């Protein structure tokens, strides 16, 4: 049965990996991911998790070794952050193109420079197009649940794609929360042992990672695109199944007080919890505002988002990353393009907040809503707004 415990979120993620019976873990220490793999290595050292832990010499080798363990046929997990994710970048594309169901936690953190170990989403936004399934979580319970579910989604034979669970560094990873631990029996029933669909086996030799001539390359990319989009159905199925087992339901775009809302905020990750407080207070003050939480980032939930904004007049997209020299934050650009065919469509304004770990209290959201209302009436006058940045 489920057990309620107070635990640091990083450790909860490690226990989720343990409950999922991961067989191989390769990792390199990087802040703020460290607590996750530290705890996993002690679980392996104490034989509480039957797995191989490879202490690689870089994140580049971490993801490369994960491809190796996955190719050998072992259930594989890794975790990283920021510069580490950037160092993996080249290999991330190869992992998904070769269809290895690796599960990775990214404890989101800003990218240099200047050097910052604190939270924002610029690391993962640089890895938008790597062809992995990606979700964002807003609290420890979600981090725990989605880590277990990720294995089931990734390993399904119609999916066979690697998956990233994004959780905000420090402000989520290092927080102690009360959360419900699902017991081993329930997880075992939910997640069967991993049987690789393709592996390197001398009894059935195959060549993996052959090179593609121009005549065949686009066909590979098309397959990848179709598979990633089709994984949507399987993700929904797994989330539903988990909901039935645990009573915790998840959706690609989640709604908070959106009934009758004329103004919608859109957030990802931890910001969502803070925004909820602001929405509560604004609603009490009579402002018709609601909150959309974007959980599924890849494959992008086109239909769910279009449906969710239906009827709103103003959509305020809050980005925790800046696309330097571009049309605002990465989420803003994507949401705008997704909503483009809608008619009528809400005015879409983008706010960039909380870069490099800067605190975002509920008051900021209230201020953003007020500013955005005024700007929307005026024009708007800018492509996007960087909130609270000193001259």
């Amino acid at each position: 049965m489920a057990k309620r415990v107070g635990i640091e979120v990083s450790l909860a993620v490690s226990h989720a990996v343990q409950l999922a019976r991961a067989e191989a873990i390769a990792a390199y220490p990087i802040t703020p991911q460290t607590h996750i793999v530290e705890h996993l290595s002690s679980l392996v050292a104490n034989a509480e998790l039957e797995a191989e832990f490879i202490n690689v010499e870089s994140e580049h080798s971490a993801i490369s070794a994960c491809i190796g363990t996955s190719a050998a046929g072992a259930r594989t997990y890794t975790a990283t952050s920021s510069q580490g994710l950037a160092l993996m970048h080249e290999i991330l594309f190869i992992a998904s193109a070769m269809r290895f169901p690796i599960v990775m936690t990214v404890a989101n953190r800003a990218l240099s420079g200047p050097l910052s170990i604190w939270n924002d989403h610029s690391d993962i936004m640089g890895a938008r197009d790597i062809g992995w399934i990606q979700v964002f979580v807003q609290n420890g319970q979600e981090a725990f649940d989605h880590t277990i579910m990720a294995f089931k989604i990734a390993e399904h034979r119609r999916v066979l794609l690697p998956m990233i669970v994004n959780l905000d560094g420090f402000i989520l990873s290092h927080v102690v929360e009360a959360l419900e631990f699902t017991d081993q029996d329930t997880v075992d029933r939910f997640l069967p042992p991993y049987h690789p669909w393709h592996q390197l086996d001398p009894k059935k030799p195959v060549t993996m990672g052959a090179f593609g001539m121009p005549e065949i390359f686009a066909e590979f990319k098309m397959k990848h695109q179709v598979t990633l989009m089709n994984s949507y159905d399987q993700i929904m199925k797994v989330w539903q199944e988990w909901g039935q087992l645990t009573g915790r339901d998840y959706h690609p775009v989640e709604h908070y007080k959106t009934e009758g809302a004329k103004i919608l905020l859109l957030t990802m990750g931890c910001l969502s919890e803070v925004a909820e407080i602001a929405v509560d207070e604004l609603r009490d003050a009579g402002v018709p505002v609601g909150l959309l939480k974007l959980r599924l980032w890849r494959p992008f939930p086109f239909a769910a988002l279009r449906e969710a904004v239906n009827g709103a007049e103003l959509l305020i997209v809050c980005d925790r990353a800046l696309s330097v020299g571009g049309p605002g934050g990465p989420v803003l650009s994507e949401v705008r393009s997704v909503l483009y065919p809608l008619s009528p469509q809400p005015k879409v304004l983008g706010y960039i907040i909380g870069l490099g770990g800067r605190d975002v209290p509920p008051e900021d959201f209230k201020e953003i809503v007020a500013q955005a209302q005024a700007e929307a009436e005026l024009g708007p006058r800018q492509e996007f707004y960087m909130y609270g940045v000193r001259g």
Partner: protein
Amino acid sequence: MDKFDVASSQKYDVYASRLLPKEEYFTSGHRSCQGCGEALAVRWVCKAIGKNAVIAHATGCMEIVSSGFPQTAWVQPWIHVAFENTAAVASGLEAGYKILARKGKLAGHPPKVVAMGGDGGTSDIGLQALSGAMERGHDFTYICWDNEAYMNTGIQRSSSTPYGAMTTTSPPGKRSIGQPTWKKNMVAIAVAHGIPYVATACPSYLFDLYFKVKRAVETPGPAYIHILSVCPTGWRSATDLTVRLGRLAVETGVFPLYEVVDGRYRLTIEIPKLRPVKDYLRLQGRFRHLREPEIEFIQRQVLAHYDLLLKKCAAPYPEFPPLSHAEEGA
């Protein structure tokens, strides 16, 4: 067959080749250049590692000529991921098979893990991953195909290019004699990791190469083999001279054949009297621009290096002290 080694191969002489495996694991139909020393080496290395093996290969000549989808020249299971991470992929493979074996999910013996890469993928961009894998002590064999430059991208210098050689990025000119630095000593770097087996080899000495590879894959822990692979395209040499050039590299002392077992050096092909390096250099267009003083400098350097190697071979102690757990406890 088990007793069949380099010494007996020399005794059997002409019959020896018949005692080697007839199975082909690197098949015909690959697209390597005419006279490719590397293709010859790959074929015999694959025979030596046998059927129960998996190969992780770096990007480079050999990957490109052998794996154009939907065809493949590899009979053993084979994986290519990127240029610089082959040793890391091999680490993962080894760890993966180890845990599957421990959990009883693997029938029979776990396969031997072999990683392969060119000199660029080994001594330049892949050195970090290789060093990490050797340091962690994975049970795998790493094989470097050394054709002494980035031949796949069109003959650019690497840290394995010999002094004075002309490449497209180390061209001789008013202020350049070609490659300005001495070849990086990858073997010494591997030895410095304290791994149980390190060797040099060349397909011109087939039995020597074959038995070294066999020994490497059978040695528990990391093993490293550095194979000189003559490249007629990049070396600007006649395609029918490949085997002869490999022999000349050894006979002149430019590329001595030796092995380092548990830190102990041993020459496996002894050359009683070295030939002058000129015999080796003059057959290659890449050294054509060198004048007498430069050739003399190379000659002196080669002799000095060879002398140092002989001293290491004669040393009464190994490069690093072997110490087993049992002895530690005592």
